[in-house]
């Protein structure tokens, strides 16, 4: 019996201790006509480890082998071997939520270190222990901004159209049930940025917050100082959505404008978490000290034990669902512990210089890729704004067709902006430090063939 240790003798002895004749007797409080006997016939027979491993190997192999230039919110990076060797140690992998603090100091100290790392990357005061992912993190940040902005009575938030449309969609799906509205702010068709002009109609209006994405979905860098100052001058909080790799090079949100962003969220995946079809990733969430009691999710504090020795524990639990129930800041009751542990190890291994080098290579490789691709007749950069590690290109043919033909050559050439932005000929491409010169050339050659 897979994973079940009981021998027939064990079962007999246990039933005797209970005073039952059979295991079936233990289900005698369930009405007989409800029982599932014979109803699971569509399930296959069990497989041995060897058999199921063979099956999974075959399935995994079906999806392997292409060179990918897709980014759009999830990025390929080199992950040092030590990261997951350690993160999947049984002591981390098979531990529960650290409710028994004395028996969970390992997990708790890792989270405290993670919180510190994230505040140092973002330039913020405090961090939580992570939420599900970047998109749902933004939904939490929007709800948090309504609680934290005491000057505003609004249940509306300004969101740039140039934000990752998947973030917008997930945030809408989550917050609209609480009658919170997202008002979309357009982008400049020439630069690919969110201009101050687009915000003019909202001047003096009551909105709880402005969302600023740096870089934005197009890879374009926004004038974050001007946007931040405008929002705060108009009584709004600033919610920053950032890429953690980029923060090694770019101004941290805590230093945006004259007062810094109020809440910072983002997708933590680039910090040592594999692409893995979209998860498990983790969302990071930081804020100014004054908003900490409005922040959702788990938070770890450093304290002392009864002998005065340093220790770590869950704190500010009065915000959370297991204490506050219907009055909690969120229903969230986990973090993404394992992915967050990997990110802590990754960031420690890379250090300030290593992460800066990764960010620099991502930027430089994307620049080089854009140069190679725009050397092909009819291929142009769609926008003029400076970019970090993604860029939008306009093609002389429909993007969806071109991408399908590239895929036939095992080149995954980015994502089409046809559906989300009605830009039928535009693709969003990304390169990171993992792409070699040869990979970039491969893409250029394949694209030239497809467009010929």
């Amino acid at each position, binding site marked *: *019996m897979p994973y079940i*240790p*009981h021998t027939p003798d064990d079962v007999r002895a*246990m039933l005797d201790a209970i005073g039952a004749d059979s295991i079936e007797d233990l289900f005698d409080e369930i009405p007989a006509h*409800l029982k*599932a006997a014979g109803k699971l016939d*569509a*399930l*296959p*027979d*069990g497989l041995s480890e060897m058999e199921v491993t063979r099956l999974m190997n075959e399935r995994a*192999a079906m*999806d392997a082998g*292409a060179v990918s230039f*897709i980014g759009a*919110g999830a990025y390929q990076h080199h992950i040092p071997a*030590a990261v997951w060797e350690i993160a999947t140690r049984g002591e981390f992998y098979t531990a529960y*939520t*650290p409710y028994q603090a*004395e028996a*969970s100091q*390992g*997990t708790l*100290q890792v989270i405290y*270190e993670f919180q510190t790392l994230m505040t140092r990357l973002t330039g913020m005061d405090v*961090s939580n222990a992570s939420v*599900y*992912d970047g998109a749902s993190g933004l939904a939490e940040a929007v709800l948090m901004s309504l609680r934290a902005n005491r000057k505003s009575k609004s249940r509306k938030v300004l969101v740039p159209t140039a934000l*990752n449309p998947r973030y917008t969609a997930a945030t809408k*799906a989550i917050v609209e049930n609480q009658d919170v509205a997202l008002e979309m702010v357009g982008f400049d068709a020439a630069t690919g940025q969110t201009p101050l002009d687009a915000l003019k109609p909202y001047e003096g209006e009551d909105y709880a917050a402005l969302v600023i994405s740096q870089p934005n979905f197009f890879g374009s*860098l926004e004038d974050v100082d001007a946007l931040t100052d405008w929002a705060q001058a108009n009584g709004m909080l600033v919610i920053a959505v950032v890429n953690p790799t980029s923060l*090694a090079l770019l*101004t*941290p949100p805590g230093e945006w404008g004259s007062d810094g962003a109020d809440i910072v969220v983002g997708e933590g995946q680039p910090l040592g978490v594999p692409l893995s079809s979209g*998860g498990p990733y983790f969302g990071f969430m930081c804020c100014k000290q004054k908003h*900490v009691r409005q922040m959702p999710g788990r938070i770890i*504090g*450093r304290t*002392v*034990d*009864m002998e005065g020795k340093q220790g*770590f524990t869950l*704190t500010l639990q009065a915000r959370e*669902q297991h204490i*506050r*129930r219907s009055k909690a800041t969120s*229903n969230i009751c*986990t*973090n*993404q512990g394992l992915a967050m*542990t990997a990110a802590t190890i990754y960031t*420690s*291994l890379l250090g300030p210089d*290593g992460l800066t*080098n*990764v960010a*620099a290579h991502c930027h430089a490789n994307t620049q080089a890729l854009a140069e190679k691709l725009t050397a092909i007749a009819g291929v142009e950069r769609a926008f003029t704004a400076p970019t970090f590690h993604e860029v939008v290109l306009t093609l002389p043919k429909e993007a969806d067709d071109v*991408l399908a033909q590239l*895929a036939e050559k095992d080149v995954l050439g980015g*994502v089409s902006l046809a559906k989300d932005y009605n830009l039928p000929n535009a693709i969003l491409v990304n390169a990171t430090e993992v792409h070699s010169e040869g990979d970039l050339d491969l893409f250029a050659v394949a694209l030239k063939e497809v467009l010929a």
Partner: protein
Amino acid sequence: MSETKLIFQLSHPGRSAVSQAPKALAEDKLSAIPAQLRRKQKPALPEVSEMQVVRHYTNLSSKNFAIDKQFYPLGSCTMKYNPRGANRAAMLPGFLNRHPLAPESHSQGFLSCMYELQNFLKEVTGMKGVSLAPMAGAQGEFAGVAMIRAYHDARGDDERTEILIPEAAHGTNPATAVMCGYKVREVPVGKDGDVDLEALKAACGPQTAGLMMTNPSTCGVFERQIEAIAKTVHEAGGLLYYDGANLNAILGKVRPGDMGFDVIHMNLHKTFATPHGGGGPGAGPVGVSERLLPYLPTPMAGQRDDGSYHWIDTDILGTSIGHLSAFMGNAGVLLRAYYYARSLGREGMIRVGEFSTLAANYLLKRLEAIGCTAAYPDRRASHEFILTFAKEAKELGVTAMDIAKRLLDYNQHAPTTYFPLLVPECFLIEPTETESKEALDEFVDAMAAILEEARTEPDMVKEAPFTQPVRRLDDVKAARELDLTWSE
């Protein structure tokens, strides 16, 4: 065990794990980024060697209890063995390197696993459709209640403002109802652990959007009136939500769909043996009855007539409650659950419910025999049960928390304490099907020793633990003098 320094305290300027990152680039490679957008100072991350990092986090890991090390009988958490093979399979390069937006032509392996997993979950729960999108139990709850709301809204039935919740429910249930814009009304639970049916009838009405409940309940017993409850809620026009926290108890034995539930969430990190990872990631798929099919969260895996697989997104299912994450949820967790389902197969699924229930009833009887007090002594245990130490607290001054802390000294993880809230000084104990009889007996021995200590040396028990990396922590100081980040 000694205090472990923070990674930041190991840092020395100029030290690095050089092989872990690409070489530095000339500054002119960054000239396209305007100076005003550039960071002025490098982030103050630790500067440490590769071995220092490996040793530091390996040492920290040793300060955790874990299923791989200890019996971990947390009630309602299902801390069963997490198969290593599932981890290895989910970490295969083809799965690990697949981008979530890769075209369907390069996703058939992954999609086939997801499609089959959806079907397996439909079969074991008796529901008509399943979406794997929610990233945790709490998000599954959110999706479920959001679907209930979408159903009522689509019918123009907008007077329904309340969700009913038994008082023993998990805290996530009321928090979820509020996140979906509902008010919460609690329903009392009777002395035998079943819902007070008369009170439920009185609470139901045209304002009722639905009822959220767990069965077996958080009282560790099967709700015997489930069909009457379903009838009552349905007749009032409400829908029935099944919190799958305790699905392990009934896997293969009875199905939520057959009990009359309209929507359920499952915790794959419980029932399907995916790791808890120190508090996540989980996965909280949702299953629905016929009438909620149009509202399932996206994306889902579908199959064409030619046998190939495709995504079902909002362009196909326009009535969906939408996306709950940027991509498709915790894919890697779902792959581990798929492995587990294939490994168990039909017979294995049935055994989960049987042997988890056997283990719990055995442990309960043995603990009663050494003088522990069951909260519901006249009931069968499900896969878990409740003990109350109200007597010990009153007579000896030794609380459930004290006993929990002392268990750590016996190398046993404590059960869930002080939940559900309606039973004073309680333990909620869930041994799972993967623990051997010897492991259960060792727990009983530890409990017997602690009860004896409580009678002879109560002050010692009140100061436990003694063998852990730290003694009891000052939680008041932690909350009053917030120290959430390290500073040199």
